[in-house]
């Protein structure tokens, strides 16, 4: 066994593993290739202590970073995907789901939870990129919608953490309409004056960008995240040229006026609670 836990860039190590890694394991930063103690990395909100690279983490890690004492109540934890189109490509959709569930220990690409951040009650929906690229089908759309319902019912803020390649093809028309459904619920949040914060993380593209991720009262992002509607490959093919350096990074999106600010993950919790306190007056 190697003496450090390798976390390949772009590949997500199941958070369960990360969380329960015994002391003595080391984390290798995929960006600067330097090593740090896994516990140190975790205490640093899964960012590199050397170069500040923000590791791609899943819902459980975000919940641990954000909720007071890591305590939360998960909503709709058992919801899982149906197969309304009986979709088959090179594999049948239900078997793809099942395999992914076994591999990741997740039910689908989004988890919703209620808890406190610095004492403020909040609902958080967080996407898991490890589950079919964080793609949005009916489960993701429904969990987000119900999460927003929870905020509406309890009059508490809603935080969406996006990390997605876009809509899930295997649910075709249903996937597309999740963009409409989630946006409809945001209209309800507006009516009820419930704060909605959208955190865009690496990567956030496609139908997620073209719906709830861009509709926050505050659109915020983690540094260096890839954010866009079309993916870089598609744009490159369209224009037949190399893309400029830094194109579609969070910093680029901020500069072009679509983000309120970029936030270091280590500061996220305090920043959020400060903002929400000001809104409450």
């Amino acid at each position, binding site marked *: 066994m190697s003496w450090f836990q390798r976390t390949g860039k772009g590949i997500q190590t199941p958070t369960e593993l990360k969380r329960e890694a015994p002391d003595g394991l080391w984390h290798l930063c995929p960006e600067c290739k330097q090593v740090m103690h896994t516990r140190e990395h975790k205490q640093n909100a899964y960012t590199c202590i050397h170069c500040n690279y923000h590791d791609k983490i899943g819902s459980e890690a975000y919940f641990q970073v954000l909720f007071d004492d890591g305590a939360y109540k998960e909503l709709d934890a058992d919801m899982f995907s149906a197969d309304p189109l009986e979709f088959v490509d090179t594999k049948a959709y239900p078997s793809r789901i099942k395999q992914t569930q076994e591999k990741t220990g997740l039910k689908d690409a989004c988890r919703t939870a209620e808890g406190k951040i610095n004492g403020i009650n909040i609902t958080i929906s967080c996407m898991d990129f490890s589950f079919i690229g964080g793609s949005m089908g009916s489960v993701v759309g429904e969990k987000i919608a119900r999460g927003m319902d929870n905020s509406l019912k309890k009059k508490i803020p809603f935080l969406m953490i996006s990390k997605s390649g876009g809509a899930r093809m295997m649910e075709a028309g249903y996937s597309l309409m999740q963009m409409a459904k989630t946006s409809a619920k945001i209209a309800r949040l507006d009516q009820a004056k419930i704060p909605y914060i959208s955190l865009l993380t690496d990567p956030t593209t496609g139908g997620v960008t*073209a719906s709830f991720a861009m509709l926050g009262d505050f659109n915020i992002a983690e540094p260096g995240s890839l954010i866009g509607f079309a993916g870089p490959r598609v744009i490159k093919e369209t*224009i037949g040229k190399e893309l400029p350096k830094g194109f579609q990074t969070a910093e680029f999106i901020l500069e072009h006026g679509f983000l309120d600010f970029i936030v270091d993950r280590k500061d996220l919790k305090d920043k959020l609670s400060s903002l929400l306190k000001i809104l409450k007056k």
Partner: protein
Amino acid sequence: MRTLLEFEKPIAELEAKLEDMKKLAQDNNVDVSSAVRNLSKSIEQLRNETFDNLTRWQRVQLSRHPDRPYTLDYIELMCDEFHELHGDRGVRDDPAIIGGLANIGGLSVMVIGQQKGRKTKQRQHRNFGMANPEGYRKALRLMKMAEKFDIPVVTLIDTPGAFPGLEAEERGQGEAIARNIKEMMVLKVPVICVVIGEGASGGALGLGIGDRVLMLENSWYSVISPENCSTILWRSWDFKEQAAEALKLTAIDMKSFGLVDGIIPEPKGGAHLNFEEMAATLKKTILQEIKILSKMKADQRVDARIDKFCQMGVVNS
């Protein structure tokens, strides 16, 4: 010159034969009426057989038929008056989306739709119906104007997708579409959306939130085109027919899932064979729907619209 799809060819051949027969009879002054009748019947039969059994891919092909009516054709045929309104007031006018105030059968309507070009130059000018963010923002500006003056909105959807370009990203393609979706959700006037050709993904949905979302019989509406789906899932362009089947993207499919509200029938053989008939059907449908929707109070309509979209999706829990 008509463009013929593969499955239109056998019908066109018989039609040509019929024309020849008629001409021959006329030139030689002979009575071929029974032969003409028989051949006409065969043509009718073949047409029915072909068009009653269209595959999903064939419908996709019809939706993109180069002779198919586009937004401006419908505007010309349906509207007694149309005043095109340009620009998003921010960046520029996007020719891929047309919008303006219209008089349709005595009713004031704001008509907005994607526009494809018919010849090479026009196609480029219209960017193949692929809008940039400023196109969606122009559409929203016009919808807000319609709301101010209490005029119903009709959108005609026909796009292979929102434009995936460099500047489109710089100017926030995702944000523009997202904003339209949310704002259309709460627009206080009646909104009717009709997919007249291609309804590809977010680019279509950016004009697609309405009290009534309808599809022409041979249009398609889904999260991705069959070709792109094939490329991603099968890693080859060649599985587009299977992808079309798997995506279940036709009007019949989408209606059966409750993801659209209705299907507007096309003339037998497709909308391109009879622009006037198609436009008349569309006009009648739009006027009927506006009449029904106008009876509701604005708040009721918005609530019903939001609730409709909130119910879409199938999960196990």
